[in-house]
């Protein structure tokens, strides 16, 4: 029973002396198993679901053993993996959030791209099973895939139906497709006292800049949002971006928008009932289902209807799996990793992950299957993220982004946006500053990775 003995094995190996003795003592059944270390950054309950996949893989065959362990949040996991690589004992697989993509992609010999992994190990793999918005995010411009998609989300709009009703609006018929409509509803909600906060957003940079740019088919950065080279420059001080920040500032002035803080801080504002409309991750679903004591619904993100090409598809968030190298890594270990990847990418497992975790159905076939079975009628709104992500053929501007030190760029944009919200600078100044400071970060990354 691997689930009981594996922690013991792991501990022994950490001591670094008695691996062989332990293997003999515990019997030869899995003494030959190839061990794979897999570091992930998902908290409970999602982390537990992920670990079940590893356990199922281990039970499905007797050659390999994947040891999945939680290593803190994504940034923590990233730093831990980097430190381990520097010390020569990187994990075989590390789960990394989407904004770490560029950092790992340019990590040269530290990472083995998955197309190379499958080529070398001879394991069959077809990257075209993944929906384009996901495949594109984790592929080189020529289509070769560098990391293994797994838990993908996108940003959607969460709406408190009860708050709308209290404000005298019918959630079924009130249109919430454009920014004008969202603003009007948010104002009505606040003015009527139905909720103290009309509109807010979690992950401000992700939802209001990255998703916003994709949906409106405007570039976030040059060089196809950085996909085509390290020399990309930010372009978020365009007329449309300034207009959008100005809209948010105007909404704040009239009371219909309340800033809820950085990163995931504003997540709590929706299930608590404080904010009637929230832009947040589709991954918030489990929490909303559990905590919200009101009738709610999900919508696609709004757009400005006078912008040509809008609305396009949104882009993804979440994380993917990366294969790391180490000086003493064997072919058998890579084969184990390839088999594990093969296992998680089957239609059954992609479906199970989507249904259990609420993350997107990342490959073709899953959505169609569930729709035919009536899953989305039983779980209204669970189809919105997928429909939004696939509603258009991705363009250069909506395929995703690949900017070095993206976590820092997100912080810079949040900072400058906050200064505008505090009234210390205008929308134009905020975005000019963000571009100027963000470009400094991009140049530093370019220099360090040349």
């Amino acid at each position, binding site marked *: 029973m691997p689930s009981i003995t594996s922690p013991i094995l792991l501990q022994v190996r950490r001591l670094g002396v008695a691996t062989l003795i332990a293997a003999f003592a515990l019997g030869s059944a899995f003494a030959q198993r190839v061990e794979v270390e897999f570091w992930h950054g998902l908290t409970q309950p999602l982390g537990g679901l992920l670990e079940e996949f590893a356990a199922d893989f281990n039970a499905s065959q007797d050659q390999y053993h994947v040891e999945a362990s939680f290593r803190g949040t994504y*940034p923590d996991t990233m*730093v831990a993996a*980097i430190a381990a*690589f*520097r010390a020569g004992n990187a994990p075989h697989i590390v789960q990394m959030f989407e904004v770490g993509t560029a*950092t790992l992609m*340019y*990590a*040269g*010999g*530290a990472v083995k791209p998955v197309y190379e992994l499958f080529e070398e190990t001879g394991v069959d793999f077809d990257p075209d099973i993944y929906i384009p918005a996901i495949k594109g995010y984790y592929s080189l411009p020529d289509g070769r895939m560098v990391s293994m998609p797994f838990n993908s989300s996108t940003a959607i709009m969460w709406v408190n139906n009860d708050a709308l009703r209290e404000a005298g609006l019918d959630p079924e018929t009130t249109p919430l497709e454009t920014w004008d409509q969202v603003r009007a509803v948010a104002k009505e909600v606040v003015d009527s006292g139905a909720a*103290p906060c009309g509109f807010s957003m979690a992950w401000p940079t992700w939802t209001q800049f990255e998703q916003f740019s994709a949906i409106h088919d405007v570039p976030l950065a040059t060089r196809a949002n950085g996909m085509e080279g390290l020399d990309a420059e930010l372009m978020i001080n365009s007329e449309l971006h300034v207009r959008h920040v100005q809209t948010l500032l105007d909404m704040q002035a009239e009371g219909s928008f309340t*800033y*809820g*803080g*950085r*990163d995931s*801080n504003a997540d709590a*504002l929706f299930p*608590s009932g*404080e904010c009637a409309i929230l832009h947040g991750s589709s991954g918030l679903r489990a929490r909303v289902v559990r905590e919200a004591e009101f009738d709610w619904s999900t919508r696609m993100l709004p757009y400005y209807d006078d912008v040509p090409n809008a609305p396009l598809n949104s882009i993804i968030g979440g994380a993917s799996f990366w294969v790391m190298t180490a000086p003493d890594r064997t072919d058998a270990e890579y084969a184990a990793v390839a088999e594990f990847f093969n296992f998680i990418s089957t239609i059954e497992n992609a479906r199970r992950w989507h249904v259990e975790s609420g993350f997107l159905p990342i490959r073709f076939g899953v959505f169609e299957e569930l729709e035919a079975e009536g899953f989305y009628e039983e779980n209204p709104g669970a189809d919105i993220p997928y429909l939004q992500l696939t509603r258009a053929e991705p363009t250069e501007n909506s395929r995703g982004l690949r900017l070095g*030190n993206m*976590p*820092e760029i997100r*912080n810079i944009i*949040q*900072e*400058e946006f*906050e*200064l505008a*919200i*505090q009234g*210390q600078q205008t929308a134009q100044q905020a975005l000019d500053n963000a571009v100027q*400071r963000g470009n400094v*970060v991009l140049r*530093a990354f370019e*220099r*360090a*990775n*040349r």
Partner: protein
Amino acid sequence: MKRRTIYRHKLLPYLLLAPQLAVTLVFFFWPAGQAIYQSVLIQDPFGLRTQFVWLENFQIVLTNPVYLESVRVTIIFSTAVTLLAMAPALLLAVMADQVVRGASGYRTLIVWPYAIAPAVAAVLWLFIFHPSIGQIGQGLRTLGIPWDYRIDGQQALLLVIFVSAWKQVSYNFLFFLAGLQSMPKTILEAASIDGASPRRRFWMIVFPLLSPTTFFLLVVNIIYAFFDTFGVIHALTQGGPGRSTTTMMYRVYRDGVINLDLGGSSAQSVILMTAVIILTVVQFKYIERRVHY
């Protein structure tokens, strides 16, 4: 005058010092040396490409207006934390010193916060001052004060100063109380007989006699404000809103761990280290002269 060693054996003193020296070497000199080495390099996070750039990292850091802003925040922050952590501690110590009944109960209560981890303390106060779920936060808003530290930079800075200082009051209290209790009673009694009021006794006798303790605490508190307040800031504001609570220490973390700019972050560590060394030397050289031991 030269004093000769009392040890006959030449090796023994070194042997006795060895454990402490080993700890200092491994946990201070080695990382500090690493920081200095890293600060003259530009390197990708994985250490695959390294360029030697002399002092360019320092030049980049010191000409960066965002960094200079964090220096300004750090000065305001550490001054305020030091004052706010020491003054109430002294007041509490003087009062606790006079308590006769239940003295140990009071002391335990006052020392309590010191046992709380900084991040936990921060979360505790977050639940009190949060504008929508915190008691005081909600109270302030009902009173018409637009309290929201997530948007207002000054309020955010006030909050992190308050929480950081609150954590340190207990520590200062302990030292002040010990100082007060070791004070020779005869001098105070003599002053009382001479008719000095309690206030006069405090300022003319107690305070000067406490000066070694005060001086020691001054050094410790400044170092605390510089280095140990990361947990509080990280849990409460993450350096925001804007950059209003980004201290030099928080910047080191941001640039090193989030931004993965190891060279720039190391340069900042070296600057921070130099600043604290200079501050401590200055304190010992100039302030210590006025201290009565």
